[in-house]
């Protein structure tokens, strides 16, 4: 499809990349991405995906904007405190790019809606803030065969990996089980600098855009680990686990099931 004058102007700095061009821009506008969690990771993800012209974006989050979110969740401003994050985030990115379609889903990503939600989008980005949702997102993406970008950040530590189901290691291949209820230590280690959440979220957005465009190499079978104290990125090779409960040779998870895990310190 030919681009309008306004589109050429809006996207010019990425259009001039040979890896993008008009065909890449069309791929972006035909793409659809579900972003789980509109927090510290979801903010840059939603910002860059909408700004780049990803045609259909879904954002699911059950929380309201809290004061403690403002130091890192860059989609929100002080007057937004108390309003539903999914709604505010959707408004914000619609203003940024009125050409795209945005669906706000106020609620939790859970066993009841995971399968249905995931199958409605081409790709899923997990920027949630708890283990139960992360394992659920992984299982749903493997079962529905959706490309997943996973990222986490806490206490000067960040991680990013992508999953192409049954072709590369899934999150469960790397970390088979979530922490049991009661096994995760104190909340005093749960802080994060806003900029580090932005860094990891930006890496996730970059990973998604690259995958849509088919540029370069995704983080498949590679777990990127960032040590924010040393400002050092490392990469550890990971691989599919034949005993993986969801993508292994004899899977025990063949349908979505709810996951019990220790809560993390959200907010």
């Amino acid at each position: 499809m030919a681009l309008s004058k306004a589109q050429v102007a809006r996207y010019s700095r990425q259009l001039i990349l040979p890896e993008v061009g008009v065909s890449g821009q069309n791929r972006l506008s035909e793409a659809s991405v579900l972003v789980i969690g509109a927090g510290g990771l979801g903010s840059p993800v939603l910002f860059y995906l909408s700004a780049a012209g990803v045609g259909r974006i879904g954002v699911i989050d059950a929380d309201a904007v809290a004061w403690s979110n403002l130091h890192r969740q860059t989609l929100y401003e002080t007057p937004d405190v108390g309003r539903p994050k999914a709604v505010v985030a959707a408004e914000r990115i619609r203003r940024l790019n009125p050409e795209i379609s945005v669906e706000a889903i106020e609620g939790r990503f859970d066993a009841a809606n995971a399968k249905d939600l995931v199958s409605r989008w081409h790709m899923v980005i997990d920027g949630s803030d708890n283990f139960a949702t992360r394992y659920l997102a992984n299982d749903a993406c493997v079962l529905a065969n959706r490309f997943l970008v996973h990222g986490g950040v806490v206490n000067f530590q960040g991680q990013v990996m992508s999953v192409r189901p049954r072709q590369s290691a899934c999150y469960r291949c790397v970390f088979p089980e979530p922490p049991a209820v009661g096994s995760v230590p104190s909340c005093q280690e749960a802080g994060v600098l806003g900029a580090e959440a932005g860094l990891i979220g930006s890496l996730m957005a970059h990973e998604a855009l690259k995958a849509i465009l088919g540029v370069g190499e995704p983080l498949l079978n590679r777990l990127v680990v960032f040590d924010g104290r040393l400002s050092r990125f490392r990469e550890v090779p990971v691989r599919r686990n034949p005993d993986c409960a969801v993508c292994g040779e004899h899977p025990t998870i063949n349908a979505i099931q709810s996951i019990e895990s220790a809560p993390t310190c959200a907010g």
Partner: protein
Amino acid sequence: MAITVRIPTPLQRLTNGQGEVACEGKNVSDLLGDLDRRYPGVKERICDETGKLRRFVNVFVNEEDIRFLQGDQTAVKDGDEVSIIPAIAGG
């Protein structure tokens, strides 16, 4: 020479802020014991009460996940690099 152990950032407060520490041992189990002697409290964060690695913590010896080697009996030697990488959920 010794074995370099990379400490995840939340545990670096137990290692005087160091992201990498030197330890000794013949295998991963020994090494984690030595790590805990030098920096008390680290091991209980990595292993459960029975001494088994917690299920959301991975240990890599020279970039190979020990689950695909011999688990905590995986041999280590001077010059090896061992990374401790926990799953993290925050967003």
